[in-house]
């Protein structure tokens, strides 16, 4: 089958090789996850100075820490001395706390702002080097030998990272998403649950599935009974799209954070979603993290007014998990087909314009 490399035509999907080629996975580390703002975690997880968690994006591991000025900063988890990894993997759900960042290899220590704080005596004296007097040992400048910092910015309590040298501002990438989310009291909610699932398909396959609902009637029959799809719409913006799903019956205002009487799912390029369910006083987020070209991790977080969930909230999370499992089945089947090589380029329908946007952004990133 012929492949059209030009996917400006809304019917043309990104060619299948971009989902199955290991080389594309490597390319995406630099061109997508190394260029755009990527979600790191929730600010409420680290409220005290010195509280931290780690996050790995592509091949880069970062420490996200709250400093003594109450700012959230991020540093590569790499010692400025000889490149050793410094702290162990620490999940956002069980953050650590440290007065300073210390490398266990040669015990270099850094302030929470990344400046070099101290080195052992062996870096100030040359006792083992007969060619050098102690007086000739040049000192280490604290700021010039500090940790390599990664740019951070926030949308409300959501902390984002950017690895590019000169990235577009987060406000520009987020557009109206930033003001819309910051108008809601998201920081007042507590992290209640996290589910991590590893799924056998490319991350963009799941992202595409999340972004459309043509599959919902046939595959999410429990969920769709309360939704009026005819009155719903999928709104596309520069780097995000919003899935507005209208409920067929009015829902109690206390069961929503947002004003509109609908479920509102935000997809923020490249791999973050905010899920305002419309039937729960809380919200969820997804991170769609690639493992390799054929696998990804879905990191699903749920936030409610209290970290201890009520029975109703637990039941709600179970419904959400059911949707995930139904979608995992679908995307794994789709990916199995794509891997066979029988379809070189998928076709998109008129209500899959959100999927087309996802694919266009991927192509723009590859070509940048």
């Amino acid at each position, binding site marked *: 089958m012929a492949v059209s490399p030009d996917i400006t035509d809304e019917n043309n999907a990104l060619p299948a090789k971009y989902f199955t080629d290991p080389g594309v996975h490597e390319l995406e580390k630099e061109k997508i996850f190394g260029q755009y703002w990527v979600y790191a975690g929730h600010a409420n997880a680290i409220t005290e100075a010195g509280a931290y968690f780690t*996050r790995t994006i592509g091949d880069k591991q970062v420490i996200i820490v709250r400093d003594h000025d109450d700012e959230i900063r991020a540093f590569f988890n790499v010692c400025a001395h000889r490149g050793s990894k410094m702290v162990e*993997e620490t*999940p*956002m*759900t*069980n953050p650590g706390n440290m007065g300073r960042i210390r490398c266990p290899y040669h015990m270099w220590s850094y302030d929470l702002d990344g400046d070099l704080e101290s080195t052992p005596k062996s870096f100030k004296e040359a006792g083992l080097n007969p060619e050098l007097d102690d007086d000739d040992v040049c000192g280490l400048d604290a700021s010039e030998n500090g940790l390599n910092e990664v740019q951070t910015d926030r949308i409300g309590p959501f902390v984002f990272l950017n690895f590019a040298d000169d990235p577009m501002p987060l406000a520009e990438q987020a557009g109206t998403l930033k003001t819309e989310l910051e108008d809601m009291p998201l920081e007042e909610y507590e992290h209640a649950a*996290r*589910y991590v699932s590893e799924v056998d398909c490319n991350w963009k396959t799941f992202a595409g599935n999340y972004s459309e609902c043509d599959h919902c009637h046939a595959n999410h029959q429990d969920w769709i009974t309360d939704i009026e799809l005819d009155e719903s719409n999928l709104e596309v913006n520069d780097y995000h799209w919003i899935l507005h799903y209208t409920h067929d019956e009015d829902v109690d205002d206390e069961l929503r954070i947002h004003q509109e009487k609908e479920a509102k799912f935000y997809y923020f390029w490249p791999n973050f979603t905010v899920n305002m369910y419309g039937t729960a006083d809380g919200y969820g987020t997804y991170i769609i993290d690639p*493992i390799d070209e054929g696998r990804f*991790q879905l990191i699903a977080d749920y936030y409610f007014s209290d970290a201890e969930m009520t029975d109703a909230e637990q039941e709600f999370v179970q419904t959400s998990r059911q949707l995930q499992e139904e979608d995992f089945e679908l995307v794994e089947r789709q990916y199995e087909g794509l891997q066979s090589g029988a379809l070189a380029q998928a076709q998109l329908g008129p209500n899959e314009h959100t999927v087309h946007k996802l694919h266009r952004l991927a192509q723009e990133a590859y070509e940048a």
Partner: protein
Amino acid sequence: MPFVARATETGARVEASTANEVIASYRRQQELIDTDLEWVFAEHPAVTSVPASDSIDAVIRELDDYFENGVPLGVLAAAMSKQGWTVGDTLSEVYELRMSGSIWEPRADHIRPV
């Protein structure tokens, strides 16, 4: 899939074609969620044959007969699950053994007794 484990906190299943894939999954999850993995089943003749024992040294020596280039950590973890050990329990004990010099790692994530 011949190897299946389950997250102790969330019950999420991990299905893998090799035992060491379960180990890789455990490590990936460690950065994301404070959970361990427990085995559901492991379809491998070495796991089935080796006698259940609380002595991990003894189990490593038994398994060593089945593998020329080292016992995959996942197979060891599956064998230790007969005693109720989680993946985390086994990896923690393997670390202690490695640091004491009583095992070596001829290739990544494959161990042999010294």
